[in-house]
């Protein structure tokens, strides 16, 4: 049953990056869009994302609940030593979620929009940035349980070049996912061309940020190359992602929106796989060389069993409903919102 729980944890994280990420990306590309094109970007995006907007962010809650029920030691270690980036991420989540709703449901459309929109855009940037920092910090081996002063316990646990680079990389991934997603939502040729041009740019950005991650890892003496390319599955994942990128460049020119989305999803899945496979079952690497493992730091058998059953039963309800929701609203041209 422990493996069922781990699969759910991994899947929840992946889906949060994919669906939540595309959603963050919507705000990010709005930021990198000229003022004139912003309304267009926004409209195309929200007609598509509106109905599943809330659901996208549930995956984070599922992941957190799995962590604190099944792997409490891991949850609390992260909570204590990565307190500051977690708070920053939470502030981003609050600001973003509320600004999104406010700007879509305010009865009067006026100057208040000028307050909501910047909040939405910048929090869309900050949230995945800190998410990336948290993810990177958990494996960068800087969490020091023996630290006595504030800075080395609570600041340098996450503040290093590698974490920052991963944060930037996560932001670029979100922007990439959103751009690829939006291509399939365009209603005319001019918009489509516009977003395809954008997609090229985001692809280069992601590659550049990926290179930054390796550079930062080198500077911080983190054996990232060894982690990714040290084992065969890691190599296979990266090669598969690279091949799919070539296919993608072809698909971009041949109007295949669904294929594009699948490929982008596949690439991100491969990246997450390569990044997590190498440490499995370890999930947090500490400074003292001791690793927190999903297999040795799991809760008692009965806890894991009931958690596993709860997740299995839950997914019987959630998944069909979610697919039906996506299906219904992809069917017809989405009308204006309620």
């Amino acid at each position, binding site marked *: 049953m422990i493996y069922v729980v781990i699969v759910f944890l991994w899947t929840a994280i992946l889906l949060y990056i994919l669906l939540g990420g595309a959603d963050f990306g919507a705000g990010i590309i709005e930021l990198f869009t000229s003022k004139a094109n912003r309304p267009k970007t926004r409209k195309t995006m929200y007609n598509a994302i509106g109905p599943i907007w809330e659901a996208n962010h549930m995956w984070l809650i599922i992941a957190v609940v799995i962590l604190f029920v099944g792997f409490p030691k891991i949850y609390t270690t992260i909570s204590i030593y990565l307190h500051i980036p977690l708070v920053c991420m939470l502030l981003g989540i609050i600001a973003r*979620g509320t600004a999104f709703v406010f700007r879509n449901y305010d009865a009067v459309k006026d100057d208040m929009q000028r307050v909501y929109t910047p909040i939405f855009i910048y929090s869309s940037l900050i949230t995945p940035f800190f998410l990336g920092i948290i993810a990177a910090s958990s494996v960068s081996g800087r969490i020091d349980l023996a630290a006595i002063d504030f800075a080395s316990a609570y600041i340098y646990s996450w503040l290093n070049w590698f974490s920052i680079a991963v944060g930037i990389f996560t932001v670029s991934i979100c922007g990439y996912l959103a751009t690829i997603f939006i291509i399939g939502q365009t209603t005319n040729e001019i918009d489509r061309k516009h977003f395809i041009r954008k997609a090229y740019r985001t692809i280069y950005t992601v590659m550049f940020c990926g290179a930054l991650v390796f550079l930062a890892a080198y500077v911080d003496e983190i054996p990232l190359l060894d982690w990714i390319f040290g084992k065969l599955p890691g190599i296979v994942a990266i090669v598969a992602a690279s091949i799919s990128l070539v296919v993608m460049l072809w698909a971009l020119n041949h109007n295949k929106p669904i294929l594009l989305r699948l490929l982008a999803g596949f690439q991100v899945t491969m990246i997450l796989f390569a990044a997590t496979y190498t440490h499995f079952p370890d999930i947090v690497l500490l400074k003292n060389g001791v690793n927190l493992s999903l297999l040795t730091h799991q809760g008692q058998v009965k806890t894991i069993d*009931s958690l596993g059953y709860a997740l299995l039963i839950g997914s019987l309800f959630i998944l069909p409903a979610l697919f039906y929701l996506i299906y219904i609203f992809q069917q017809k041209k989405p009308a204006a919102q309620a």
Partner: protein
Amino acid sequence: MDDFLAARLQMAFSLGFHIVFACIGMVMPFFMSIAHFYWLKTKKTVFKDVTKAWSRGVAIFFATGAVSGTVLSFELGLLWPKFMEHAGPIFGMPFSLEGTAFFIEAIALGFYLYGWDKLHPWFHWVTGVVVGVSGLLSGILVVAANSWMNSPSGFDFVDGKYLNIDPIKAMFNDAWFSQALHMSIAAFVSTGFAVAGIHALMILRGSNIEFHRKAFKIAAICGTVAACLQPLSGDISAKDVAKRQPAKLAAMEAHFHTEKNASLIIGGIPDTLNKKVDYALKLPGVLSFMATGDFNKEVTGLDRIPKQDQPPIAVTHYAFQIMVGMGMLMVGLAVLYFVALFRKKQWLDKTWLLKLFVVATPVGFIALEAGWTVTEVGRQPWIIHGVMRTADAVTLMPGIAYSFYLFTAVYISLAFIVSILLYRQIKYLRS
């Protein structure tokens, strides 16, 4: 500010904020579905207008409740890591089920908000009902987790170790039913009175009267019926607390001395030094009756509770008085409203009745916040009753005071923006 106090205050603010949005997000969908039902049955567009207006409210409150809930799931670990390390695996069951219920709610809300003219009318209606039912269910599940802290079960505590964990038994602890019942009804009372109050105000202002009358009636009936049921569930809760947490009951009542035929103390100022309550109204034997069902039975007082295990008496006592007082006011208003509905129809057009409802707008939520203060402060000094002290659960990280200031600022500004938004929704309805 002391880190421990800051952590407690931050948690209290976060919960106090979340609970308002969670309640409205839980109950408004039911109101919305009732209006929607009338629209489908009668085809009167006024019901459709009410439904749509309320569904916008649901969207705003649900989203705000969802983000504040997400924040809470992290705050548990950020502020109380020692607690979560041990409690997580024991009381996690309701949380993992709640994840599902909440997810379903989010999906159903997606269907509902964007489903107008796209889905079959009755399927569309059902998705609205599902929003309400799954919302209520997730509320009940979260309360089940809280009740475990009051009534820990499903494990053996041996030499500081938590052994033989049984998550199902932990979920169905002794307190879950009384707490979940009391909370669910409270959600209906507070949301019902708040919504009814706002629509009553609009009727008095004389704008779009038919619309607001329909909306008022649905909210007022739900709120008043719930208000009349609440004392019954309160009685179940009181007897339950008397049995499991005598210290909490004693603090609620500022009941200093263990005695038979114990008096119910109404109001008053507890004097902890001299162990008496000044200026209070005392009803002999009533406390014994409420706690045990017998006027002559003994009720444990604070004198039997060691000093270090006593909750803060004044806060718990005042909060309890406020909750009961507000509850009684609402029962009174409910009775007037029923008389108006069934006996004196002409009262329904009188401004004084509507004015009373306007005044009562925040009363339900005041009672709700006071009630949670009783539950949470009354459980102190324990975070897990009788097992772990709150002071032992707080995070090692210093400087929580700054985090408290930050979150307080965020919550105050959010409350401010939501108020503006609500004001604008209502203003928009008038024009």
